[in-house]
């Protein structure tokens, strides 16, 4: 059964239509890359999937494991296994990373009728996951993202993903602002978390990330719709030709 089924999704923010009929199907274990020029609706898609309130869905539907995802609160989406790695992770002074994660992990466990982890069990789990993205102990004791470098913030997102073990992870421009070393660390973390059940939607502007996280499918988003889909070769084509030729594939733009 498909994990995610997006049908004719339309959404607007601040009165402006951004998504104009987006269709996408993701099966368990697949990695889908969504590429597109600035303003095409990539981040809007991520925000709508995570449940950001400012984004108004005006049409279409999103089924996640057969249920209406759009009907769920952001926390319920997370508890059912949806994870968004933020493009701009928020700094939360005064809340330590460890305390934040322990609360999150146990709230998710509670919602799934699992006993909460005690401090010892939590520490063991955390130690195990810290290795994936080279997080050290000091970082877990710092306030969430406070004073973190761009690379540390993105590593922290993947660390959270590793802790929460989602079934659908949406990575919103996780590569933005990363140098090549940080990019490699982040990508290695993601690759380590790939398995037959877990699916990824990797949103990116550049093909570079896809050298490290190799997708099963690549989709090109333009003007609120997916205008072309293919395999990883499509990403190379985009890298080579840029986005201009895509515009010709979009009926709306053709009119202009």
């Amino acid at each position, binding site marked *: 059964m498909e994990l995610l089924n997006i049908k004719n999704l339309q959404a607007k923010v601040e009165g402006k239509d951004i998504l104009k009929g987006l269709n996408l199907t993701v099966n368990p274990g697949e990695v889908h890359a969504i590429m597109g020029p600035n303003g095409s609706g990539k981040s809007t898609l991520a925000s709508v999937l995570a449940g950001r309130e400012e984004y108004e869905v005006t049409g279409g539907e999103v089924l996640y494991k057969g249920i209406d995802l759009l009907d769920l609160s952001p926390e319920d989406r997370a508890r059912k296994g949806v994870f*968004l790695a933020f493009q701009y992770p928020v700094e939360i002074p005064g809340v330590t990373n460890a305390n934040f994660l322990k609360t*999150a992990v146990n*709230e998710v466990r509670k919602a799934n009728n699992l006993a909460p982890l005690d401090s010892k069990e939590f520490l063991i789990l955390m130690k195990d996951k810290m290795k994936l993205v080279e997080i050290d102990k000091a970082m877990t004791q710092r306030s969430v993202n406070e004073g973190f470098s761009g690379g540390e913030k993105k590593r922290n997102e993947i660390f959270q993903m590793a802790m929460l073990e989602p079934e659908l992870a949406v990575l919103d421009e996780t590569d933005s602002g990363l140098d090549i070393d940080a990019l490699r660390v982040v990508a290695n973390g993601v690759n380590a978390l790939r398995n037959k059940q877990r699916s990824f939607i990797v949103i990116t502007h550049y093909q570079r990330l896809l050298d490290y996280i190799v997708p099963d499918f690549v989709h090109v988003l333009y003007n609120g719709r997916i205008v072309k889909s293919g395999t990883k070769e499509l990403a190379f084509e985009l890298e080579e030709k840029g986005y201009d030729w895509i515009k010709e594939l979009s009926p709306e733009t053709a009119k202009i």
Partner: protein
Amino acid sequence: MKNNTPLPVASFLNQFNDAEKSFTTSLLPMKKDAIARFEELGFPTTKNEDWKYTNVFPILNNTYHTAANEFNVKSTDILKFISGWENDTVLVFENGKYNAALSKLQNLPSGVIAGDIKDFSDHPSVNLYLGKIASYTNESFVALNTALFNRGAFIYVPKNVQINCNIHVLFLNDSRANSTVCHPRNLYVAEKGSKVKISENYYSLDSVNPAFCNPVTEINIEENASLELCKNQSENENDFHIDYTAIHLQKNANLNINTITTGGKIVRNNLRIVLQGRNASAYLNGLYVVSGECHVDNHSFVDHSSPDCYSNELYKGILDDHSHGVFNGRIYVRKDAQKTNAYQSNKNILLSDDATMYAKPQLEIYADDVKCSHGATTGQLDPESMFYLRSRGIGERESRALLTMAYAEEVLDKITILPVKEKLQEVVHSRLMKESN
């Protein structure tokens, strides 16, 4: 003037006449003068600029009884208040009266005094400072306290003595039988080079009858001495609390005072700090986490009267339901107080549309070589932070509690009296969880 004095004030005048015989003779002239002054001043109205946002007249809607002679509070009644204080010294005041049986003096170096001020009325420090640091001339509640006080905590730390344990003072209102009033009068003296940590804890036993607590605290911190004071105000939702604390700091003295309010109906804190000696430093922090109909008003006045002194003030509020907050912080830098560093900040979060906050930071600077700053902000929880937490599976209620707790921690972190800090963290956390319902 007398004609404007509201009638109920008369009941306090009667209390003076009833109690007059029990006052220490040497204090009687001051007390007589204070009651006369109170009669002239009456209760302050909201026309008085210092009381513009705090109407104290609801206090007068009750008939208060002064404490009976016998004690009614049992050791089991106070267990939850004193837990964590096992290795510290504890003074217990029941409706303002010192309860020696419930108090525990321990781990104090020789020469240190902690007890009921009534038992030390001829101590040199009492003669020197009692009534000399807190002036009642323009403060009707100080006048009332000065006229009517009979008891209070006296803590004296001799020269160069550093106390490792904490001294906790528990002021317990027991208005189970009747509405009660008390006027504790505290005096803390830290002599040269000494160090002490004191907590004042204001609680009420469960009761629907209001209690009115009107404490005045005078503190002198001598040269190179250091004093920390934590005020934990956790009284019932019907209770009134008017606090006046005046502190003098001498050369190189250090003060860390934290005022944490989590209960009461009307709470007014008047804090007056005078940096009298060179290079003295004062840290003033406050936190108020209130809901329901609670009204909490923090007035502070930091008087830089010597050069090279430092003051840093941080007050934070979390207000829910119909609660009201008032912050009025005044920094006064005198002409001779060059090289002053004075900072002040007031930040508030309103959790409800019906909560209100009035903030008035004031800087008055008469010296020309100083570094001063002040600011006040009032807002809501950051929606982006809320979304971030919720997107990780943390429910709305818990997310709010996490964020507000983190906000509160900035102040709670300044408390180094650990058992009090931990208790306050618990109280604030459970309060924030409840408010997020």
